[in-house]
């Protein structure tokens, strides 16, 4: 399976990445892209910028493990994960997940699975800058709950 994992400071081109996965093949019937974008406010307070710190080496390894896990769970034909680090402004892209499969359920499920894990297991930390200074974003219980649903015996795959 074609898989691409990149950590980078620069912005990415979601469309170009999705096109790379499908170019020249006719077995792919479904492509899901998720783009995470820096919002202009966090918990209601306006923010000026976001800085993403990461653990080089571990971040790539952790994402690779989850991409392999996704491949084992669903019949995927391609996966791309790009996560930016460094400082970014509201409206800028943060993260991209692209999944390709013959059928839509696998593509949707794998993209959600990868995002839930990126939120809770990939070694990245967000710091927001606002008028009141710099603050580390706290982990959300809702994200942990979202990630935990993948530990349960498969249920949604039954519809495939």
């Amino acid at each position, binding site marked *: 399976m074609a898989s691409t994992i990149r950590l980078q400071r620069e912005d990415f081109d979601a469309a170009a990445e999705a096109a790379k996965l499908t170019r020249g093949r006719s077995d792919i019937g479904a492509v899901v892209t998720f783009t995470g974008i820096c919002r202009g406010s966090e918990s209601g307070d306006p923010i000026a910028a976001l800085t993403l710190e990461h653990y080089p080496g571990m971040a790539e390894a952790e994402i690779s493990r989850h991409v392999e896990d996704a491949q084992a769970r669903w019949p995927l034909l391609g996966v791309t994960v790009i996560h930016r680090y460094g400082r970014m402004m509201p409206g800028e892209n943060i993260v991209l997940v692209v999944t390709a499969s013959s059928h839509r359920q696998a593509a949707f499920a794998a993209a959600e699975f990868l995002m839930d894990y990126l939120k809770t297991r990939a*070694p990245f930390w967000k710091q927001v800058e606002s008028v009141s200074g710099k603050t*580390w974003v*706290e982990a959300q219980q809702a994200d942990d709950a979202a990630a935990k649903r993948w530990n349960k015996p498969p249920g949604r795959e039954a519809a495939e």
Partner: protein
Amino acid sequence: MSQLKLIYFSWVRERVGKAEEEVAPPKDVVTVSELMSWLARRGEEYAHAFENPKVIRAAIDRSHVRPDTAIAGAREIAFFPPMTGG
């Protein structure tokens, strides 16, 4: 125990005041949890960083580990708050 590389991220790094260092904990420091207790006794900045060890996550050689994991054989141990990527 031989030299061990420690790496800190996010507010753990800010509180400790450095991104990484080499340490040589005594032999009776067996687990990740015991390593945090030992670090907390190294000074005010460490005490502050590790004041609530339950919220600190650890990785040994770039894999997540639980607090009761043995540190024997580790080359690099990282400490950080819960992750907020994605």
